[in-house]
């Protein structure tokens, strides 16, 4: 309760400072938050009650973006966990894939857009591939780290009781790696918002928050661009809160066990 109050206090103070600074600076490039919020309202949230006050623009931009993000995140996270486990568990798989994955991980996706266009074509397929390709890495590396640093005695216990491959994985390795996996998933969450924006700069895109944002800048509609930025921030915050609720449930044992120190 107290921390919630504190958090809001910090937020309010910062927003007020922001308002004051932008008002003082009076730069077109840095509109005041009040201006931005007014713009957000006008652009997205002044619709009829029937659509939950969302405007057509909101339905046309925000929903497709969230859909892309969610699908890309789910796919990327799943791929990351599976590959990460394989890499963390099998030295052989690790050896074969390590070089290639480390190579792919460093590749700047904007340089590969042409290849994406050729391989996937325009639209959702390319966008999802792009998002997944970008967010898979934090999940993958952290999962591999988690799977590799399972307490040796836990593994020995599994071995002694001859637990099957699946049992080890599901009952021991995964739970034990989970705190680290979650660090990766949390990183990937905000990253998925970012690359969602990038994916909407890809050839052929005509809607989405990222599209709206870059379009706004190319026409120098700076309040609209800032509206996009703030919307991303708010979405990031909300998704993160949701994420933490899930994490607290899944990792309850972990948090409790860590609180041994009074």
């Amino acid at each position, binding site marked *: 309760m107290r921390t919630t109050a504190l958090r809001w206090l910090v937020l309010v103070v910062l927003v007020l400072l922001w308002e004051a600074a932008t008002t003082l600076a009076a730069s077109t490039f840095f509109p005041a938050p009040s201006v931005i919020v007014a713009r957000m309202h006008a652009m997205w949230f002044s619709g009829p009650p029937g659509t939950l006050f969302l405007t057509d623009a909101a339905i046309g931009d925000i929903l497709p973006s969230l859909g892309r993000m969610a699908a890309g995140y789910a796919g990327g996270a799943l791929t990351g966990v599976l590959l990460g486990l394989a890499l963390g568990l099998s030295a052989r798989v690790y050896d074969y894939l390590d070089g290639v994955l480390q190579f792919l991980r460093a590749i700047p996706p904007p340089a590969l857009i042409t290849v994406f266009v050729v391989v996937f074509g325009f639209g959702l397929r390319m966008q999802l591939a792009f998002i997944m390709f970008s967010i898979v890495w934090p999940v993958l590396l952290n999962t591999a780290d988690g799977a590799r640093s399972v307490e040796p005695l836990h593994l020995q*216990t599994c071995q002694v009781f001859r637990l099957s491959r699946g049992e080890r994985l599901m*009952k021991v390795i995964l739970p034990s790696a989970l705190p680290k996996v979650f660090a990766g998933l949390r990183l990937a969450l905000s990253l998925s918002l970012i690359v969602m924006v990038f994916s909407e700069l890809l050839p052929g895109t005509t809607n989405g928050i990222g599209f709206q944002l870059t379009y706004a800048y190319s026409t120098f509609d700076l309040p609209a661009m800032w509206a996009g930025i703030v919307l991303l921030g708010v979405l990031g915050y909300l998704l993160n809160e949701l994420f933490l609720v899930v994490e607290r449930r899944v990792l309850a044992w972990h948090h*409790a066990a860590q609180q041994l120190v009074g």
Partner: protein
Amino acid sequence: MLEIDNLSHVYGGGSPNAHHAIDGLNLSVAEGELLCIVGPSGCGKSTLLRSIAGLITPTGGEIKIAGNVVRQTPDNLAVVFQDYSRSLFPWMSVADNVALPLRRKNMDKSQRREAAHEALESVGLSGAARKYPFQLSGGMQQRVAIARALAYRPALMLMDEPFGSVDAQTREDLEDLVLKVRGHHQMTIVLITHDIDESVYVGDRVVVLSKAPANVVGDLKVDLPGPRDQITTREHSDFVHLRAEVGRLVRGHATV
């Protein structure tokens, strides 16, 4: 049942601070026997146990269980680790910890749960079934590890100082519990202990190891009459004699 032939193990072989833990050890354990191993701290007892369990590959010699050379963990084996607190899974309740290995035993969920509760009850922890390991005291955790091994009903049970963290009364009860279970279910047990009285009380045989590198310096058959009993057995003259004998062997090789 168990044949150990000229077993050696060197840790960090090749490096300048290689450690020779076991050197040419020979030992055999008969089916259904309860063998106690005593020996100075750091001599190589846990190393021996881990080799039998197939958790480490000894650098020399051979271990056979029921005639088969141990290359990986044999079937139907249970271990109570010395570092019991680390061998429990912190994300599972105590009951789940105990029930987990039973999945190998073709038991359905309710059977597993029942077996786990029974085992927990036998070590005096029926009240703690739904707690998590970190909510238990050291001695309670150790008993969970014992319950897990007992519930599994292995053919070969390896116990590494399994009663070190419990009070005297509980310890005696657990000793008797192990003896009882062994009698009912025809298990072979290798038990490491530092308590000389205990080794004589529960063991059919006591093997004394030398300080590192470990080797057998004494192998005593314990031939005490009748079913063991905490009071009468310990008063028996053979018991007192054997205890003194083991004590002498151990002390001849102390480390401090």
